[in-house]
């Protein structure tokens, strides 16, 4: 009957602590709303708890977490976009996001990071997902294609289009920060 216990609590806690930044950040960048992102991240970990016995290695867990987070976040985004009051919520979430993004040592200040975060939120969903996985998770287009179960050419096209759109928007919004 040992298979009835999916995973022990201590091991699960370690998994949550190891991957919470990744899961929450993917959810936040896709949904652009901290409350929804937390809900998505919690649901993802809950599903991990139930499915942990099927996951065979650390790499497998990482792959699974990224995939489930992306799917749950895009589902949440679609549900929100179908609601008429979504526009008002986006305005409120924008205020939260600026505060949620800390300064860092990578040469990009919090204000620029917050601006880019907002510009990202205006991208169409497939481009947004591809850009987040490429530039936040540092994944190659091949890895993204495998994760999303999409053809490589589609992923490359989403990435290229997403970058084009972001650059165009950034050229206007961040003239003083980015050339």
């Amino acid at each position, binding site marked *: 009957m040992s298979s009835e216990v999916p995973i022990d609590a201590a091991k699960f806690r370690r998994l949550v602590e190891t991957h919470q930044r990744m899961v929450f*950040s993917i959810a936040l960048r896709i949904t652009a709303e901290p409350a929804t992102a937390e809900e998505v991240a919690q649901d993802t970990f809950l599903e991990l708890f139930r499915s942990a016995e099927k996951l065979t290695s650390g790499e497998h867990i990482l792959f699974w977490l990224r995939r489930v987070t992306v799917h749950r976040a895009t589902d949440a985004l679609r549900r929100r976009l179908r609601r008429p009051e979504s526009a008002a919520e986006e305005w409120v979430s924008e205020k939260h996001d600026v505060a949620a993004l800390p300064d860092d040592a990578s040469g990009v200040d919090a204000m*620029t990071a917050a601006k*880019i975060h907002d510009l990202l939120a205006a991208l169409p969903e497939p481009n947004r997902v591809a850009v987040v996985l490429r*530039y*936040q998770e540092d994944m190659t287009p091949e890895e993204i294609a495998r994760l999303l179960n999409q053809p490589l050419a589609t992923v490359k096209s989403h990435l290229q289009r997403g*970058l084009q759109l*972001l*650059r165009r928007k950034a050229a206007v919004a961040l003239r003083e920060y*980015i050339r």
Partner: protein
Amino acid sequence: MKEHESKQSRGELAEFEQHLSGALRRVDPPSGFAERVIHRVVATPRTPSLFGLHFGWAGRRAVAMAAVALLVLAVWTAYGVHERREQARAARAESQFETAIAVTGRTLERVRLRLDGPGLLQRLSSASQGTVQK
């Protein structure tokens, strides 16, 4: 000139990608996130198995076999019902055919009797003569 422009454009793109990577770093979840997840895990009851019972590997196998047996029984019953319906339909069609054949036979018999009856040939020949005289 074009090569120079393309190099510059590539350089700008690379710089923009650097900015993007810097801006899109992972962020911390709200404080207490891990605790909330653990709390939800503890609070959420496990999805009960069939009739609220938890089955081990052998139990799951038995349930799966019972399900397969039920499925086979259902298919077999459905097949039997279908067969009986088909047989009844065939019997109805056969009886209708026999009735039709009997009616046709009787009709043909009546026609034959009329053709064989006295006076018919005479009527036919007088009719044809009358047509020639006209």
